[in-house]
């Protein structure tokens, strides 16, 4: 797919977040992913770019979508993929994480994809391991490949980001997806709005350089993209939001509220959806507005692009002997 001795694409040997990426790096990753998206729609989806390389999927949190997406991306690029699902004991997470890292390091993986409930876990692993680390979601911090796949979906539909109004709605407070998307969209020239009750917004959210709305219709007014966030069930029973029915009434996306957005606005959701909570089924399944399935498709392409880009920094002969 890519020519031999491809140009390095990322400055860092890890992908830990969007915040540290440059506009050029983001654009190059999207360009590369575009080519993989085309490849993925063909009959032969396989390449041998990562032949002989080992990719470990290390997931401390349950995930179907992201884990399988990375697995497929690795396999299509010819890597050997190993999935590890680790249950964390809440008592000694830090210790366990470093122990796990040391053990894994001895197995000499080339790439490690990690998801962990604690913010900063991917960063910690990157410091301890010799391989490339890809953050597949750390706590409420970042989920860079999600933001990249969202960006790819938007760019394919809208051409560019310049001047687009993107409303990110829902549980911003706990969302790594929101943080990564805010960084990415702002860097690429979109205008970002956050729409949520005050309990689901970080108190200093305006420091992200975004506009804050508590009223969903106002927040959606003239929006090109409506990005819904998942609300965890345990947060709907009184601590952050009084009830599911109240949340849906004021912050659930239905066709009525969507009318406030620009005609033809796109609806996105990182999945898995809570139907009838943050999004009405009628909207989620409306192929005229919903690009949720396309997001999943672009997910594989983006992860192939990320693995491709990071592999360019790997020594051709493998790591030096310890």
């Amino acid at each position, binding site marked *: 797919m890519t020519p031999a001795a491809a140009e390095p694409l990322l400055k860092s040997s890890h992908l830990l977040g969007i915040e540290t990426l440059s506009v050029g790096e983001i654009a190059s990753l999207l360009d590369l992913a575009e080519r993989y998206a085309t490849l993925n729609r063909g009959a032969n989806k396989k390449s041998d770019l990562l032949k002989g390389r080992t990719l470990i999927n290390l997931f401390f949190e349950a995930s179907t979508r992201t884990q399988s997406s990375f697995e497929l991306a690795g396999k299509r690029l010819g890597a050997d993929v190993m999935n590890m699902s680790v249950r964390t004991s809440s008592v000694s997470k830090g210790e366990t994480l470093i122990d796990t890292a040391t053990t894994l390091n001895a197995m000499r993986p080339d790439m490690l994809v990690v998801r962990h409930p604690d913010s900063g876990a991917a960063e910690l692993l990157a410091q301890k391991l010799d391989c490339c680390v890809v953050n597949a979601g750390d706590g409420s911090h970042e989920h860079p490949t999600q933001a990249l796949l969202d960006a790819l979906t938007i760019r394919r539909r809208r051409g560019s980001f310049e001047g687009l109004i993107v409303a990110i709605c829902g549980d911003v407070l706990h969302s790594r997806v929101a943080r990564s998307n805010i960084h990415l969209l702002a860097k690429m020239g979109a205008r970002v709005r956050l729409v949520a*009750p*005050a*309990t689901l917004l970080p*108190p200093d959210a305006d420091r992200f350089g975004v506009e804050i709305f*508590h009223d969903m219709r106002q927040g959606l007014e003239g929006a090109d993209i409506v990005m819904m966030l998942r609300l965890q069930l345990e947060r709907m*029973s*009184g*601590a*952050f*939001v*009084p*009830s599911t*029915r*109240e949340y849906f*009434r*004021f912050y659930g996306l239905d066709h009525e509220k969507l009318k406030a957005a620009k005609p033809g606005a796109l609806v996105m959701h990182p999945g898995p959806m809570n139907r009838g909570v943050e999004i009405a089924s009628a909207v989620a399944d409306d192929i005229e507005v919903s690009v949720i399935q396309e997001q999943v498709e672009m997910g594989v392409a983006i992860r192939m692009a990320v693995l491709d880009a990071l592999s360019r920094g790997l020594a051709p002969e493998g790591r030096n002997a310890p």
Partner: protein
Amino acid sequence: MTKRIAFRNARLIDPASGLDVKGGLLMENGRIADVGPRLFNDAEPNDPEVIDCKGLVLAPGLIDARVFTGEPGSEYRETLASASEAAAAGGITTIIVMPNTEPVIDEPSLVDFILRRAAATAKVRVAPMAALTRHLAGETMTEIGLLLEAGAVAFTDGDRTIRNARVLRRALAYASTFGALVVGHAEDPDLSDGAAVTEGEFAMRLGLPAAPAAAEAIIVERDIRLVELTGARYHFSQISTRASLDIVAAAKQRGLPVTCGVAAHHLALNELDVGSYRTFMKVKPPLRSEADRAAMVEGVASGLIDIIVSSHDPQAADTKRQPFAAAAFGAVGLETLLPVALGLHHDGRAHLSHLLKALSTTPARILGLNAGTLAKGAPADLVLIDPDEPFTVKAEQLRSRAQNTPFEGRRFHGRAQKTFVGGACVFDRRTGR
């Protein structure tokens, strides 16, 4: 046919506009059709019904922002209907009822119940506050958005302080999302646990369990810090100490959206009135020192205290006929609210118009009610007051279902003569109904 009532020879006091003149007022179809110094001055109005006010005060009906009833759940104490009888006799045209009932008003359907029940049975307007936390348990917030849509005017746990600051912080943040008003009761639940009176020499001599007056200021300070964090609109339902008032004053100076009220009994009574264990003097928060009482009067006079409330809390005789510490908290107050407030006028502490403002215009503003004004087009909720009529409080004459007044036998000057809600007379002193 349109229903018209003409008032002439009135002393019109409209705290909303600052008007205080002799003049007339015309009610038509439940609204104020005309008002002014020249109205009906010369010619007799040719209206079917003319009321010669003989120089008495005609003012916006009072709004009592803190009323407990027993409906639903303990109707033997008070119903919306019986409370409305007492309110009408007290010159009160809107009562704000607390959610501390059985069941607790923490569901949109229960707000709807109160509004329908009031429409069917009550003589005066009834506006419910809904609970801020479910079952008043102080743990999880209620459906503030849906409750607002159902008609709740504010959110409060009534006479309970939310112990957990994080719960309150989130509830305030969530309320701010909807611009909803949160109303708090300031009494540290741990410091005041089991206490019957305010800590001090008198409590010591009586040997009663007591809480320090600081139990109030501690919560006032905490809640104001949380208002600062969240930007929520916040009203202290009643403060009773100088320390609290100082904290509120500082918060107002900082421009925080904070207001406060005082209960009439905290303006007229102090801790010594408990005397020989008079349980009708057991209120929540407890009666304070004379210095604190005087500070409350000062606060009303200066306007730092925004509103005066009755804190009407009817209790059956059997729960009051108990040893002091075991007796129930609460005092009825709907019919003594205006007389107590007028006392400040007679003592030369505050102008009549200023007091009426704290009893009508300001509560309407804080609660977002279309009331508390004599403006043309406003609902004709009016009270005709004789500010000088002397009378003695007799518990058995009170219209409330319960008679636990702390003012039994006390002489006052001034009370309501006639009360009108939406243009209809709901109380007339001459007929007593």
